[in-house]
């Protein structure tokens, strides 16, 4: 009998994750001490007061503008800036997260719909695959940091401000995995399933809705999962050249202007939490759909 069978279920399930997180935290603290050590020691030297080695170590974990903030500093700043201010205050991290989240969701929706439509046309018109696909791939090779200001400026010139330009940049990045995944999904039915449709003289629309579309659903959710994190990155990047008024991108930019490293890290934590929630939501919808479609798993 394997020994694992004797352990409680929560250890076999959660154990590996807990261990990895613990190791990462230890490494993070070690890095914080090592990276901030010179900074803190020099500060003690300048004050010309006696200090011990232990004072320096303690100082590295509690510096106001550390090179690498310690985990507890990030968590404290995160909690303070999320819950410490009213939701409409520009000092509230929740407010900035909401700004970025709304741009992400709109951009993700635009990108997903556009990506699916593109895949449908590529699958139905083989010439498009040759003529369009190279351009689609090229579009992803242009650095988004270069494109983003251009889009913001051009759209600003025709009077479009606020959420939409950011969403478009986000959509520009996130349609690609959807297109690639859906082209694969829509062509995934095997020849026999397509031959059957032909023997029943099904119309192209019937073949699409009754065969190609349902066959592509697992591919759709796999690519949506990739694409939703990319659309968050797109929305954050789009906030950098806008003058950084609001959003997680703005927090990152302002933090780096004023050397507020703790603020940068807590903004990153907020982005990570948003990404995790978005992926979990897509996973849940995907699992629900798979169950409805008779999934064996």
């Amino acid at each position, binding site marked *: 009998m394997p020994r694992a069978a004797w352990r409680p279920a929560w250890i076999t399930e959660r154990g590996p994750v807990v261990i990895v997180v613990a190791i990462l935290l230890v490494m993070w603290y070690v890095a914080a001490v090592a990276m901030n050590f010179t900074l803190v020691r020099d500060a003690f030297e300048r004050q010309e007061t006696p200090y011990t080695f232990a004072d320096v170590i303690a100082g590295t974990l509690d510096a106001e503008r550390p090179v690498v903030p310690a985990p507890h500093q990030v968590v404290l700043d995160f909690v303070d800036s999320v819950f410490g201010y009213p939701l409409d205050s520009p000092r509230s991290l929740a407010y900035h997260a909401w700004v970025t989240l709304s741009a992400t969701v709109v951009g993700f929706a635009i990108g997903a719909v556009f990506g699916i439509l593109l895949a449908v046309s590529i699958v139905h018109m083989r010439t498009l695959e040759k003529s369009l696909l190279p351009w689609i791939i090229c579009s992803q090779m242009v650095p988004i940091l270069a494109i983003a200001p251009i889009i913001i400026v051009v759209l600003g010139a025709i009077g479009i401000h606020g959420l939409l330009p950011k969403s478009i940049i986000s959509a520009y990045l996130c349609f690609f995995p959807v297109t690639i995944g859906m082209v694969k999904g829509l062509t995934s039915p095997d020849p026999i399933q397509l031959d059957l*449709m*032909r023997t029943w*003289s099904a119309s192209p629309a019937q073949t699409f809705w*009754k065969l190609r579309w349902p066959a592509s659903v697992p591919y759709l959710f796999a690519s949506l999962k990739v694409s939703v994190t990319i659309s968050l990155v797109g929305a954050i990047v789009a906030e950098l050249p806008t003058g950084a008024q609001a959003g997680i991108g703005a927090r990152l930019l302002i933090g780096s202007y004023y050397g507020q490293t703790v603020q940068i890290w807590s903004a990153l934590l907020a982005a990570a939490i948003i990404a995790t929630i978005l992926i979990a939501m897509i996973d849940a919808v995907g699992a629900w759909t798979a169950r409805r479609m*008779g999934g064996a798993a």
Partner: protein
Amino acid sequence: MALASSATASTRPVERMRPPESTQGEGSAAAGQTPLAVDARGVSLTFQTRDGEVQALSNVDLQIGTGDFVSFIGPSGCGKTTLLRIIADLERATAGTILVDGISPELARLRRHYGYIFQAPALYPWRTIERNVALPLEIMGFGADERRRRVARYLKLVNLGGFERKFPWQLSGGMQQRASIARALSFDPALLLMDEPFGALDEIVRDHLNEQLLRLWDQTQKTVVFVTHSIPEAVFLSTRIVVMSPRPGRIIDIIPCDFPRDRTLEIRETPEFIKIAQRVRAGLRSGHSYDE
């Protein structure tokens, strides 16, 4: 599993419910007489491949009467599946003429004259068994009530009553193939084209399904064209056996097989059965050079 024990189907008059499209006109069928189910004259098919031309079928002449059960038998590459696919308009002959129910294969396909059963059941995994059987009916525009009635009738006919709500992966291979037969029967085509339907199943299941298929054929008066490479299966099922040979794919013998329509597995022990099986084997041997 009493085979087609839903013998109610035999007492019911055979319905010829045509799918909606096929009501207008019967094409160029010869006036007054039933057209042949399949009438192939000089049919050839040449594939262009990177290594040059491959002659899949060469000058095939074959007439299949309505109500016949005809088997194509031969080694791989003899063109038996290709011939079936030409009848089904899944391939086009490059020479010769072929008529299905007196009309072109394309017209026969568009008018839904035939049901095609592949070696794999090819059920759609996201549909329950009943919705799989209903799929061709949905496509052909049958109403919901008629769909429900037909699904129930044909699932019963293949002994799958009670499995309506199961998904394909919950059924064995043999049950899946029976569901695919119910799906092909659901729109009541006059012609059944079966491409090694039981090839992937073990012998016990295969014997059982062969008996069920014979009952079904007897009850429904359909024409069946059946591709196989099992000699006993061909002799047991058929009214005629077409022996084919590769390079190029051609017919080398057509053997009549006159057992009664309601034959049972026991006939496999009779001298007549063994004699026909020997003639099939001799045909296969003569057409195939083993020196290669």
